[in-house]
């Protein structure tokens, strides 16, 4: 029978992780990382934002891409939930709508890795010529 994980095990794990992080962290500031915000209010949750978020976290982990995935409130695009906002340092943020697992995969492969925009962008920061 396997032992059930307890807080004591967490203490051990912490020491391991801590040394790893110290190795990695040099020059690795959060503001230089790709940041993905998943809209997670009632509308998002009901449309499956939780699955999308879990998928993004797992897939980025799996591929070893350093990125921060956080939750955010309702952005007002309830018709297009789940929505995510992708912020790449030094670039304008992009909001995508109807992000299921397939779309999330596409965004990781194309937008985050290759910097190509993918279909499904919501023109959130709409700008006119005068701006």
């Amino acid at each position, binding site marked *: 029978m396997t032992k*059930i*994980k*307890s*807080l004591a*095990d*967490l*203490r051990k*794990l*912490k020491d*391991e*992780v*801590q040394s*790893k*992080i110290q190795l990695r962290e040099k020059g690795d500031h959060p503001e230089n990382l790709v940041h993905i915000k998943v809209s*997670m*209010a*009632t*509308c998002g*949750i*009901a449309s499956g934002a*939780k699955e999308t*978020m*879990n998928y993004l*976290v797992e897939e980025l*982990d799996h591929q070893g891409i350093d990125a*921060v995935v*956080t*939750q*955010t*409130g*309702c*952005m*007002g695009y*309830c018709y297009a939930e789940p929505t995510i906002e992708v912020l790449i340092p030094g670039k304008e943020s992009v909001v995508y709508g109807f992000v299921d697992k397939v779309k999330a995969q596409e965004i990781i492969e194309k937008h985050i890795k290759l910097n190509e925009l993918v279909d499904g962008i919501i023109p959130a920061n709409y700008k006119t010529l005068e701006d």
Partner: protein
Amino acid sequence: MTELSLHILDIAQNSIRAKSSLVEIYIRENPEKDCYKLKIKDNGIGMDEETLNKVTDPFFTSRSTRKVGLGIPMLKQNTEQCGGSFLIESTPGGGTTLVATFGYRHIDRPILGDIAGTMLILLANENDTDILYRHQTLQGEFNFDSREIKNILGGVPLVTKEIRQFLKSMILENLEQIQISE
């Protein structure tokens, strides 16, 4: 929403938005009394009576991005469809407490669902709100306190891959001990 964990995620986000420093989530299962009780208590800014009277209205929200709220009314509807009851209490500055009960054996009672995922998402909230989760069944109880976890972790971020995976399996294994499975 078909899973209780989604409701919890949704309601606890209200607490986080209400500037709580601690959100307490209690689930008590009692098949003998045919009762499944969810209680969410926060120490946030609370609501005045006028607001409190409106929270179960689907078309009320404090957000400016949309005109419907729906989170609380959907939970209320769910409890009522399952032979349960719904209660919410709040005082300005005194936090908010919400109690939702379901008939334990009611066929429409939502399953708990991915509670570990809900906890991990809540733990990574931007306001650094602490989360306490206590789940009681006739077989025992499981306590999960983010203050304890943060204490042990020191400065190591909760969102680290290894820590996240550890916490997830810790929650699932412990819940299994008191016989809760997804």
